[in-house]
């Protein structure tokens, strides 16, 4: 289950039209949803509420091994509609899942609002705070959009001063800006707390390429990430393809196309820290299929099954990781990943998958939804007619009926899959560990139950079990 704050951040990005997928850090997002899913660590309860569409609060309680709590306050500039009560929130939005992300677009500026000769639409922002109890750690995040294509993040983690600190010496190079960070001379607490830190990040997205520039104050680490999308034709891409399809004559010979149709992205990452004298680099390529444009044209080849392939290479440590993920049926997606170190020949293979089960509302409401769909489709039929007056009338009718059938079938399929209220995930890795996670909407709560087991160990075959319950009121 996605944590509430992450869900909110995603909904905020969606509301302002920021494409989170077009960054190098999210290059392996599709396969990670199937291979790196998190099992709840213990017994976690989360309660969230949105008193107004721009303000959100949440409590979370972590019961084992010791009782910890956290309280979060979040506010945004944009009203977020997608987060409703957990009874009715679309289940597909609250879980990490395999999906094909749409082609990148250039982010659009905010709509102008004028009042009394001045623009009053303001700037997009999100402010987040989380106070951990009883340790009183505070984590905060401020996100704002500086220009339509540039976004700034400031994240901080503050740790309250321990009561028994020694006075820091003025010669300590860390003391001037990191007096809150953990010093080696400090008396150590029984539970080591994360040191305070400030993270600055700038994200730049133009559609064709995106960049991310980060700085972490605690270790003085700079990071640069870039991603380039090959074959990016701008926002008019879909319309161009559509008009090309339309211009074809009915009896025109179709060039047979085979294989997967998709797009390539390539990116890289460099990070270095002068303070710690460390340096890192990684590069990656991703191929992902293009989601079909609806309605599917009559003469087009069948749409490619949603597939994503990624290849990552770290030249410094010589590690290559390749992942292949595909949706093999409307309810099943699988992924495999193979990583090998070219210097030591150490390798690792992981296989994972998700299976959408449960159909609480899908079947019951399907007939109602289909009935609701009918009138607009008939309307489409009427609207299309004046545009194609010169075409063969029979062909035209056939075309429309095909489109209509295709459309209805697709919508039906879409609803059938999207209305499922449960997903079962499993992954097995080369080291002999098996992880199983079941996420579902039970009554009005979002529940996830998971376990990690280890075949190789006789003493502890089950390494961890966790249960998480979320309730959005």
């Amino acid at each position, binding site marked *: 289950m996605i944590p509430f704050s992450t869900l909110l951040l995603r909904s905020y990005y969606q509301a302002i039209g920021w494409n989170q997928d077009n960054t190098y850090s999210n290059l392996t997002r599709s396969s990670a949803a199937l291979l790196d899913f998190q099992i709840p660590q213990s017994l976690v309860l989360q309660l969230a*509420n949105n008193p*107004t569409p*721009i303000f959100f609060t949440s409590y979370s309680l972590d019961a084992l091994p010791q009782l910890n709590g956290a309280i979060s*306050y979040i*506010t945004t500039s944009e009203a977020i509609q997608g987060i409703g009560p957990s009874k009715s929130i679309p289940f597909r939005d609250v879980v990490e899942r395999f999906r094909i992300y749409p082609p990148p677009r250039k982010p659009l500026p905010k709509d102008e609002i004028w009042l009394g000769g001045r623009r009053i639409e303001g700037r997009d922002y999100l402010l*987040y705070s989380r106070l951990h109890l009883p340790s009183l750690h*505070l984590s905060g995040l401020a996100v704002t959009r500086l220009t339509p294509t540039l976004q700034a993040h400031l994240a901080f983690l503050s740790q309250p001063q321990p009561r028994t600190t020694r006075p820091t010496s003025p010669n300590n190079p860390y003391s*001037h800006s990191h*007096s809150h960070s953990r010093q080696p001379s400090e008396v150590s607490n029984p539970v080591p707390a994360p040191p305070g830190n400030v993270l600055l990040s700038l994200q730049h997205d133009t559609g064709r390429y995106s960049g991310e520039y980060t700085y972490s104050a605690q270790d003085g680490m700079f990071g640069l990430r870039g991603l380039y999308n090959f074959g990016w034709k701008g926002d008019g891409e879909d319309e161009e393809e559509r008009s090309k399809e339309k211009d074809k004559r009915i009896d025109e010979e179709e060039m047979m196309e085979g294989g997967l149709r998709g797009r390539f992205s390539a990116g890289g990452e460099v990070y270095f820290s002068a303070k710690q004298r460390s340096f890192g680099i990684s590069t990656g390529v991703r191929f992902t299929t293009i989601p079909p444009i609806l309605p599917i044209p009559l003469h087009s080849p069948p749409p490619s099954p949603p597939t994503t392939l990624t290849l990552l290479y770290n030249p410094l440590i010589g590690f290559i990781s390749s992942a292949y993920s595909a949706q093999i049926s409307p309810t099943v997606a699988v992924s495999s990943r193979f990583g090998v170190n070219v210097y030591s020949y150490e390798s690792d293979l992981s296989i994972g998958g998700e299976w959408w089960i449960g159909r609480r509302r899908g079947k019951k409401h399907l007939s109602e939804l289909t009935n609701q769909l009918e009138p607009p489709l008939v309307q489409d039929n009427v609207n299309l007619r004046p545009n194609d007056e010169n075409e063969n009338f029979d062909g035209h009718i056939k075309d429309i009926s095909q489109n209509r059938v295709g459309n209805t079938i697709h919508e039906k399929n879409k609803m059938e899959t999207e209305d499922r209220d449960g997903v079962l995930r499993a992954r097995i890795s080369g080291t002999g560990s098996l992880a199983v996670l079941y996420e579902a909407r039970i009554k009005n709560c979002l529940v996830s139950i998971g376990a990690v087991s280890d075949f190789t160990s006789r003493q502890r075959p089950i390494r961890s079990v966790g249960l998480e319950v979320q309730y959005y009121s």
Partner: protein
Amino acid sequence: MAISDETKDRFNATLGVLKTVVTVGWIPFIIYIGYRNSSPQPSLIKLITPLA
């Protein structure tokens, strides 16, 4: 030009105060921004506790 120890100390003290202000004021600031920009404005207790 080398920075004197006194300037350093003053800088550190200012930074410390600033940090305290940010950490203490961050949550009230968020609640205030959320309260100010909401329309209609809910009661403050609703914003502060999710159980209300």
